[in-house]
């Protein structure tokens, strides 16, 4: 009965969506805002990657909200998973096999470079703080898999996360000081397409990347560590 109801609901949903999309011309979405932003982004923000211009320039406040959501989720995860220091250290797993340890040693610097590249070039090429931050978190998680006894300091991760979040908000408040709206890009736009260009957007993305990386690696570490408690 419930399956039937679910099927009916899904069918209705598909019908509604089809009815909406059926009225639109195929392949030509009515993107008025998108076209306007694509025209205006280059002279106004100066970022070669229009997505970054939208995410940090026009919709910086939404990005701040996204960071807040991620922060709340990571904090809640940390609360549920409990303290690592209390019981995780004692029953840590022994070191992994040779292949995994050697592979980690090879991959760690490469992932670090890839993550930093994606973060720093967020305003030029696809990618940015969120994606690069996750890559950084993965890079710092690999050594933990290979050698569970050695781990990063939670205190330092929290400090990095807090400083990065503060830097993001401080850059936003700096725009207020100049008389602009909150999170308006600061500084000179520079040469279009250069690494140091489009004002404060690279700095904002660096803050986002560090914050996301620290948050996620802390979360992964909590998940990985006091293991063996339940099994």
């Amino acid at each position, binding site marked *: 009965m419930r399956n039937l109801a679910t099927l009916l609901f899904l069918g209705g949903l598909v019908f509604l969506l089809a009815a909406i999309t059926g009225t639109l011309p195929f392949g030509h979405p009515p993107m008025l805002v998108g076209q306007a932003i694509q025209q205006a982004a280059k002279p106004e923000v100066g970022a070669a*990657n229009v*997505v970054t211009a939208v995410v940090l320039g026009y919709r910086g406040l939404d990005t701040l909200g996204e960071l807040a959501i991620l922060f709340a989720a990571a904090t809640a995860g940390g609360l549920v998973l409990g303290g690592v220091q209390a019981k995780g250290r004692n029953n840590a797993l022994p070191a992994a096999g040779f292949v995994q340890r050697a592979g980690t040693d090879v991959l760690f610097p490469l992932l670090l470079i890839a993550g930093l590249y*994606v973060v720093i070039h967020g305003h030029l090429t*696809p*990618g*940015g703080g*969120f*994606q690069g931050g*996750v*890559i950084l*978190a*993965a890079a710092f*998680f690999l050594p933990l898999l290979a050698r569970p006894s050695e781990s990063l300091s939670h205190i330092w991760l929290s400090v990095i996360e807090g400083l990065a979040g503060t830097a993001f908000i401080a850059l936003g408040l700096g725009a207020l000081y100049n008389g602009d709206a909150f999170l308006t890009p600061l500084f000179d736009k520079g040469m279009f397409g250069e690494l140091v260009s489009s004002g404060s957007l690279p700095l904002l993305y660096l803050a986002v990347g560090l914050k996301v990386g620290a948050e*996620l690696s802390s*979360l*992964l570490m909590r*998940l*990985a560590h006091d*293991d063996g*408690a*339940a*099994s």
Partner: protein
Amino acid sequence: MMGVAIIVVALTLGAALAVLLLENLLAAIAAASAVSLGVAVMFVLLQAPDVAMTEAVVGAGLSGLILALALRRLGLARLDVPTSGENTDA
């Protein structure tokens, strides 16, 4: 282009089916990551590299990792099928 898209969609749907049908939970997680990877390739084909990057990194990498770690915490991470009776506590 169209052929590649059809192949990718078929692989993604196959992987999605494998998530439902596989009895080994670790293999199911790997299949779920493969679904995200297929979706990421579709995003590249649709010329949305930013979204594709997010999908590949978060969907295929991070969520698979978190699911696998959750399995390990629950004591369900075994390489053999749970019903076979032989449990290697990995």
